[in-house]
């Protein structure tokens, strides 16, 4: 297998077609962008805590700059952190390993995908340094504000922003095609769809949702570019256009996009929870079907972002209904995850701590979503800090806590060494404490009536008594950022100093643990054969408390397909302990 591994450094680590290298490239690009997004958050929070005071490391924040920072923070965190890390990073690295193949279906397409993404990153960063400044129209770029440079004074910066986002979509389209094709066509012998680890299911469903929702937004982005540069009037009411058209196209993508991010996070969680609780996932098929239903529902909820945007008020209640209904499939999934812990034997690795925290924090994000989803309550909370708090309670667990769980879990696989446990604990407790300190006060600010995207809360009398919440949140944000230092130190320190990891340090069942750590080029010495479902832990009659998917049936490895049978049947069929 090693004979065809590329030998030159450039082909091996830079322009590599190896899914593992590309996955790590995506992850570390995302990490670098997260630092940029975090710095922007620091500037934003400092400005809000002490409006008008120069921010250390940035200077005085002008109104236009504040808008640009809000815009870029959101854009970067969603499109340049969440997407590359959750979808492309973990997806690329893990899908071929989990399904027991050597690489993606289209390795060259994968290479093109990453470098298109990299180009989009360059264009986005460039957009901050052109005359006129970076886009200040919010990550939603609603026209007319975004449609004419005269409204914001931003010229090329916003054009480049649109181009960057469009390029990024092209990159993830290539990635999505690859993920789905790979998962369908390149599974190991014996691995049926119901033997796929949940992470693969979630990535595939997320990719399908992405591919089916992104088209309308690309159409909207093209029309917006035309409005800006060719003087067309797609979104210009005076020319016969309609500003709300863009909102529909945006949110038709924008809301499914939330699930594009959530599903891979839930996938990571499924893998970490089962390994660390030594338990089969509870209700495997129930989770898959719920996810599919949620994916379908996600296409008919978009207008809940627009209850008060000027759409026909009679549309609000139907969309409110679909929005609130989507809580049911996700409730099923979360209940299944909780039931997975029942009768488990939980090993609290740092990964497991992050996974449990993700569940706990995401719950708050989920229940507060009901307030936003109710059309009547939305009249008050729309575009307020309540929304900001809500989506940070959903997105921070999705975009950071779940990937942290995944990163601590698979770091031994990535690099063949363990991360330092102490630094990991420091990182975990610091992150959780300061995250809550940062975002809990925002619920209160939202209830006070604090609207989003304002640079100076002191301008409003009704927010005067909320300024101490503002400052608390800022200390939370600063603490949250500082407590990422142990993580970054840990990553690089452990590359050299970490304890060596064997192939299967956590005693997992899935095929990613059947290969050496780190896996060689081509992954598997010989194509693996899959004999059973992915989560066979604690089966009565087995030799050990886990039975890997690739272990041939025999003494100590009961029956080929476990998730289909019940325990009694298994005990009867399984051979006695070898």
């Amino acid at each position: 297998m090693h004979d065809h591994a590329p030998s030159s450094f450039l082909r091996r680590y830079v322009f590599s077609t190896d899914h593992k290298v590309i996955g790590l490239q995506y992850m570390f690009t995302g990490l670098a962008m997260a630092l940029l997004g975090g710095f922007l958050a620091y500037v934003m929070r400092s400005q809000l805590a002490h409006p008008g005071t120069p921010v250390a490391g940035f200077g005085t924040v002008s109104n236009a700059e504040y808008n640009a920072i809000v815009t870029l923070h959101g854009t970067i965190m969603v499109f340049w952190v969440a997407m590359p890390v959750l979808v492309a990073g973990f997806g690329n690295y893990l899908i071929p390993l989990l399904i027991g193949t050597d690489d993606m279906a289209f390795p060259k397409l994968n290479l093109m995908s990453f470098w298109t993404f990299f180009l989009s990153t360059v264009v986005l960063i460039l957009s901050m340094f052109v005359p006129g400044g970076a886009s200040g129209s919010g990550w939603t770029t609603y026209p007319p504000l975004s449609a004419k440079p005269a409204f914001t004074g931003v010229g090329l910066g916003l054009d480049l922003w649109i181009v960057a986002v469009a390029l990024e979509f092209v990159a993830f389209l290539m990635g999505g095609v690859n993920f789905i094709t790979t998962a369908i066509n390149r599974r190991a012998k014996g691995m049926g769809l119901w033997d796929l680890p949940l992470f693969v299911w979630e990535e595939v469903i997320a990719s399908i949702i992405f591919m089916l929702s992104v088209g309308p937004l690309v159409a909207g982005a093209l029309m917006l570019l035309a409005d800006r540069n060719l003087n067309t009037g797609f979104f210009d009411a005076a020319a016969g256009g309609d500003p709300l058209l863009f909102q529909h196209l945006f949110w038709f993508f924008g809301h499914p996009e939330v699930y594009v991010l959530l599903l891979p996070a839930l996938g990571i969680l499924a893998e970490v929870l089962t390994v660390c609780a030594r338990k089969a996932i509870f209700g495997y098929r129930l989770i898959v079907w719920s996810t599919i239903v949620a994916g379908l529902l996600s296409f008919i909820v978009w207008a809940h972002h627009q209850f008060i945007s000027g759409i026909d008020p009679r549309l609000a209640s139907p969309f409110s209904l679909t929005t609130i209904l989507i809580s049911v499939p996700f409730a099923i999934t979360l209940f299944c995850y909780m039931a997975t812990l029942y009768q488990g034997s939980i090993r609290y690795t740092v990964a497991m701590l992050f996974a449990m925290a993700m569940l706990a924090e995401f719950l708050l994000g989920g229940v507060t979503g009901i307030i936003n989803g109710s059309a009547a309550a939305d009249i008050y909370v729309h575009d307020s800090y309540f929304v900001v708090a809500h989506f940070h309670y959903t997105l921070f667990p999705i975009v950071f806590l779940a990937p942290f769980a995944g990163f601590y879990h698979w770091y031994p696989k990535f690099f063949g060494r363990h991360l330092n446990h102490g630094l990991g604990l420091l990182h975990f407790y610091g992150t959780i404490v300061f995250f809550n300190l940062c975002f809990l006060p925002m619920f209160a600010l939202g209830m006070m009536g604090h609207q989003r995207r304002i640079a100076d809360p002191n301008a409003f009398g009704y927010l005067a008594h909320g300024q101490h919440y503002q400052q608390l949140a800022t200390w939370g944000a600063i603490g949250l950022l500082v407590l990422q230092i142990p993580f970054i130190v840990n990553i690089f320190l452990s590359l050299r100093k970490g304890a060596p990891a064997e192939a299967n340090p956590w005693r997992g069942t899935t095929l990613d643990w059947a290969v050496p750590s780190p896996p060689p080029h081509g992954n598997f010495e010989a194509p693996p054969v899959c004999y059973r479902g992915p989560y066979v832990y604690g089966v009565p009659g087995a030799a050990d408390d886990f039975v890997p998917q690739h272990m041939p049936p025999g003494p100590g490895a009961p029956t080929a397909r476990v998730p289909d049978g019940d325990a009694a049947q298994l005990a009867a069929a399984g051979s006695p302990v070898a």
Partner: protein
Amino acid sequence: MLWDLPRALSSFASDIDRHMALIYWICGIWFLVAEAVLLWLAVRYRQSAHAAAGWLPGDTRSTNAWVLVPAALVLVCDMVIEFDSAVVWAKVKETTPPAELTVRVQGRQFAWVFTYPGPDAKFDTLDDITAAGTLRVPVGKVVKFELEAADVLHAFYVPELRLKQDAVPGRRIPGWFDVLQPAELTIACAELCGASHTYMKGTLLALPPAEFDQWLAAQSAPPPSTPPTATR
């Protein structure tokens, strides 16, 4: 949380607050129960307390019920919330009570402009009264508004009235509110509208009806004295 809400000064503000309280209660109980169960599982089934895990794939009908029954309860709660939401929404946004006064509200970068129809009760006539920055309305009377935007999106937002509505260029969006007691409130813009979005503010003055009528009459009265040069 709910106690952080500003005063409720419109006749629908209390409906919205009550609806939010309903959601707080339902979701709050769910949240606390779920967190408690999670915490119990986390502690009870830690490795040192439970050395050997059980086999429980949850793939039979009877075990699926463990999650499907709570999920059905979620659905029931959803329906309660959604029903209440639809009722409140219909009151605030889908119906307009008979109005005493109609005002045109226009958002523009970065100010609010208000137009009263004047004595002829018709807009776009010579006797229209235009006021920038301050919207005066009579206390206790239903005020109908027609919301417009001159340039970009804005949102007409008065926290104490629980009133929020986007203004969209090319559309005239109808709505209504009332103010239950004399007050001076801030009108804010709740939709990002450009560099000075933060400072796009106006004032809502709710005056006793008599005082309001007096003000309105003064606006439409001819100038108090004709200049002396007019006599010849």
